[in-house]
């Protein structure tokens, strides 16, 4: 079956007589992948930063909330979380259920995916943010307080700006993980890239062609993210500051 790969398949209609051809399907899958990842990234960054900060504060209750959040969201497999967000949670919240029935199903899948993926990734981001803050010398926090900053001001002006810079490299892998993990959204029917790839494989039996195309697309996306983050790293680099050094 590998003897002759039939690349022309990508230009054949998905169903006889329709206009849409396979590469368009894969491309629309790619767009869903990118859209889901992008919105989820925003949620992950916001919630993750908040939770990460909570975990490093001196307030016992707040750091408990942060810790509990991380433990719950990172200790259940993503695929199970998808199922729970999509099938289980609406059953217990009648207004949500009503909304999910009335809304366009694609929108429901998209929003569910974005929330699920975002909150899951937030637990990973929270870990990074926490370790970034903790990796700063304790003296930085003390220096902030000693100048009369409040705790919030110390985070805002002293700790976070440096912590974010320090965690750019691990956040690059988290961003790449996020994109990869978006493929699990296929289990609730979101028609993202892996979904379309499987679909093409199953409909045309051209598994190799479809998976090669998908692999190439994922690698391109991952490399682009890598480049973008490298740019971010360069843009935010502090002159004279060697990462990890003091």
């Amino acid at each position: 079956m590998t003897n002759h790969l039939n690349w022309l398949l990508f230009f054949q209609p998905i169903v006889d007589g329709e206009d849409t051809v396979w590469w368009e399907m894969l491309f629309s899958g790619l767009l869903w992948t990118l859209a889901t990842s992008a919105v989820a990234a925003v949620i992950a960054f916001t919630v993750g930063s908040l939770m990460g900060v909570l975990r490093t504060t001196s307030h016992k209750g707040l750091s408990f909330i942060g810790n509990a959040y991380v433990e719950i969201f990172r200790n259940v497999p993503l695929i199970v979380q998808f199922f729970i967000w999509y099938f289980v949670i609406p059953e217990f919240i009648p207004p949500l259920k009503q909304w999910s029935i009335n809304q366009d199903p694609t929108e429901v899948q998209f929003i569910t995916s974005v929330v699920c993926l975002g909150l899951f990734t937030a637990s990973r981001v929270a870990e990074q943010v926490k370790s970034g803050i903790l990796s700063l010398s304790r003296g930085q926090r003390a220096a902030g307080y000693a100048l009369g900053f409040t705790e919030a001001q110390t985070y805002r002006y002293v700790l976070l700006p440096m912590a974010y810079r320090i965690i750019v490299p691990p956040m690059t892998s988290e961003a790449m993980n996020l994109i990869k993990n978006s493929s699990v959204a296929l289990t609730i029917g979101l028609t993202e890239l892996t979904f379309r790839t499987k679909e093409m494989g199953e409909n045309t039996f051209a598994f190799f062609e479809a998976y090669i195309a998908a692999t190439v697309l994922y690698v391109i996306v991952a490399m682009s993210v890598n480049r973008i983050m490298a740019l971010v790293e360069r843009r935010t680099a502090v002159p004279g500051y060697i990462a990890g050094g003091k």
Partner: protein
Amino acid sequence: QDTGTLKKIAETKTLTIGYRESSVPFSYLDNNQKPIGYSMDLCWKVVDAVKAKMKMPDLKVELQPVTSANRIPLLQNGTIDMECGSTTNSVKRQEQVAFGNTTFVTNVKVVVKKSSGIKSLADLDGQPIATTSGTTSVQLIKQHEKGANINFKEIYGKDHAESFLLVANDRAKAFVMDDILIAGLVANSPNPGEFMFLPEVLRTEPYGIMLRKDDAPFKAVVDTTLNGLMKSGEVNKLYTKWFQSTIPPKNVNLNFPMSPELKAAIANPNDKGVE
């Protein structure tokens, strides 16, 4: 001299059966995790025939679970020698694989909740319809005269159980699938009385045991066995056992009488695929 699968069986002294783990009542696991079902019973008959023909009473049979996604590649790369499940025999698939003579005929139908008020295909206009990813049955609606002009939205379930759950939870209004599979899901649901089929039959599809392509000698063994069972009427007994009696693991009865199409296929064994 033997070629293909028979040669392989002679050399390796094993035959590997691909089975499905939750395709009730064709091929699924009982509570002891043994694959059972209508297709499995038929396959064991084929195994007996192979043993007899090859004069290998101690032929080893291996059982390999497969999914709808990997059954064809696994057959092609030699992991399994035949697939005993509920695979539709289609002309398109015949480009890749071969099928034994038809063992079952299903009608693709639409299931809805009685409370939804939907009475016919035409009522589905503008509604979300569940479909299992990797299947194409929804497109059949468009090909039906009553569905030609309606617009609907597809919601994909990861598997049939999920697609059906979408209907049970009111997230989708209907689920289009082989009637026998739906009958299994309905029978197992908490409230079987909630659901009903729409009257339209979207397509009639034959199921068959899937085999490697271009392997006439092995296919001959399979077909001869099946034809024998059909002539002797043993197939009808098996049918009653699996479709019209209580079956493990939960002792439900599918109450699914034999369709005229299957009766015709048994009277006239053939391996014609659906377009």
